[in-house]
């Protein structure tokens, strides 16, 4: 299988300021030296709590932030080396669907104009071609053709998310970044959208970068999962293996904190003490050690490397030498 997108040693640091005119006071390492890849037609799930860097990762992939260090390769080409035409092509190939379909669709535009906008700005197409494509896209996401002439307020949340998906697909992308695509929707609507996303993946061979805090949804949708904590990848591997037998103590705590799907589902509950520390002053050594139930003296001194453990990558001193 060929990698569609590869991130190698990717970092994004933001300068932190104090006060109105204060100078730089350190940096926030929002994403710190992470590597991952997304294969054609596959889904990579990213999980982690607030401040873990998953949104920054999505922005880096979308080209909305430039990495401080490291590289992203798409279809084998380094993004940093692309010329204007190459960048334009990249922007077309990577599209996004965001969390809140009430905020992401302009209330003043008709659905046809919303869906056609990326098409018109990116390609030289005739008006009749645009119309034909819009109707095709509506069909693809399961909306009736008459939707084209309506406004967003005439649709429910689930239908709006279908419109947002149609817009993302307008320029035939290869990779779609899905940032919490169902968490703003009603429970009975979520399964419709998740099913639609899977069908579209099968039909169009799309790759997804799927970001969500609902671990069961991520496990259901993803082929591989990356678990992040304070800007670092702590564990990565096959979705099913990782969800069932997490190795890193943080992954174990996170998956045990996920709510059960049945009242008789009993599992070991690992309730972590404390909260995620400030990314401005991450703990030395392993960033998870102050909250880790298995912390050892060396965890405070040396950051563990990401190593291969039983078919997945884990960054923890409990494993390896």
């Amino acid at each position: 299988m060929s990698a569609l997108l590869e991130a190698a040693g990717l970092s994004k640091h933001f300068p932190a300021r104090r006060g109105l005119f204060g100078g730089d006071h350190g940096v926030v390492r929002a994403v710190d030296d992470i590597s991952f890849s997304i294969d054609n037609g596959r889904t990579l799930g990213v999980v982690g709590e607030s401040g873990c860097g998953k949104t920054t990762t999505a922005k880096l992939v979308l080209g909305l932030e430039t990495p401080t260090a490291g590289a992203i390769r798409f279809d084998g080409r380094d993004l940093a080396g692309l010329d204007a035409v190459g960048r334009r092509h990249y922007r077309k190939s990577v599209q996004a669907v965001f969390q809140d379909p009430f905020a992401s669709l302009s209330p003043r535009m008709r659905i046809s104009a919303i869906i056609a906008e990326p098409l018109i700005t990116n390609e030289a197409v005739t008006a009749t071609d645009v119309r034909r494509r819009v109707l095709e896209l509506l069909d693809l996401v399961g909306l009736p053709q008459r939707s084209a002439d309506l406004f967003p307020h005439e649709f429910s949340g689930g239908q709006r998310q279908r419109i947002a998906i149609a817009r993302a697909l307008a320029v035939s992308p290869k990779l779609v970044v899905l940032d919490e695509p169902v968490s703003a929707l009603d429970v009975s609507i979520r399964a419709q959208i998740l099913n639609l996303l899977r069908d579209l993946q099968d039909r169009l061979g799309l790759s997804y970068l799927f970001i969500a805090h609902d671990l069961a949804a991520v496990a259901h949708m993803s082929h591989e999962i990356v678990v992040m904590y304070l800007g670092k990848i702590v564990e990565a591997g096959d979705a099913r293996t990782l969800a069932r037998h997490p190795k890193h103590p943080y992954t174990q705590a996170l998956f045990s904190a996920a709510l059960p799907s049945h009242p008789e589902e009993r599992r070991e509950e690992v309730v972590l003490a404390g909260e995620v520390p400030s990314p401005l002053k991450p703990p030395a050594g392993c960033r998870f050690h102050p909250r880790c139930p298995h912390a050892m003296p060396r965890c405070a001194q040396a950051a563990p490397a990401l190593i291969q453990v039983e078919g997945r990558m884990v960054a923890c001193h409990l494993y390896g030498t």
Partner: protein
Amino acid sequence: MTAEPLLSLENLSTHYVSQQGSRVVRAVDDVTLSLNAGESLGIVGESGSGKTTLALTILRLLPPAARIVSGRLVFDGEDLRTKSDSEMRRVRGKRIAMVLQDPMASLNPLFSIGDQVGEPIRVHEGASRASAWQRAVGLLKSVRIASPEMRVRQYPHEMSGGMRQRIVGAIGISCGPRLLIADEPTTSLDLTIQAQYLDLLRDLQRRHALTLIFITHNLGIVARMCNRLAVMYAGRVVEQGPVARIFNAPAHPYTQALLGSLPRMSDERERLTAIEGQPPDLASLPPGCAFAARCPMAFARCAAEAPPEFTLGEGRTARCWLAAPATARAPLSAHAVGGEGGAHAEGIGG
């Protein structure tokens, strides 16, 4: 546990009426529920199903447009519907407390934590400011906030989201209520912080013999925290009973569909069982069962006549013709069930 339930609602209805009286939204319609002391009840429903209105009805904290139009509301042997506003003020915060979803919005940014946690104690028990502060320190400790002596002097912006939510919890239990209503208490929290908070609530429930009502859209919270469940759809309780029994064998097609639509960690399924269509508009409900248009098992009678609440034994009820005694059933007919992807739903004005 006493024989008399702590809270009992009988055929309770709350409607929102527009100014001209032309539009009536039946937000809570004919709800019958009872809850014994020490139990924890999960009320599950989608947005607009009436679950929050039901909570506000129990507290009589409804907005001006809403009216409790019928039914009985008995708490601890007293009919709350007949109480005056000033009598209700002595119930709220003291005997029934509520924890809201957004801890940032429920704390006042201008008052110290000590003042806010101590306020109910001063109001309900007439305690002095100094002694209320003393009690606040103890309450913060009981919600596991480190160095509470320092924290009482601080302000909400100095706390993290998880701490704020625990402070709101401390305010909730400050006067030793018998019933605590938590409305989506963890939606704004991260997973590991949510686990901490649920763990804390369970601990408080044990130590203070609290009766809990969880208002949530999340069946996982119910599975972890509750022993009883009421499922609401379009203002009505469509199914209720012991949590484990409902999860094992849901009686109402809506509950079945809801449980089937949840992704699971151990999923082998390629596709989830989606519920097609949209929830109905509460201002113009169909004459029959409100779920009929989305129900895969609907038959002719469902569209014509709303099912009453059938008793299934073991404290279970369901509002579905399929749960009726066999004589009440009619043969299946070609009742329309929507096509692909909500295309037929209300938004498109077809």
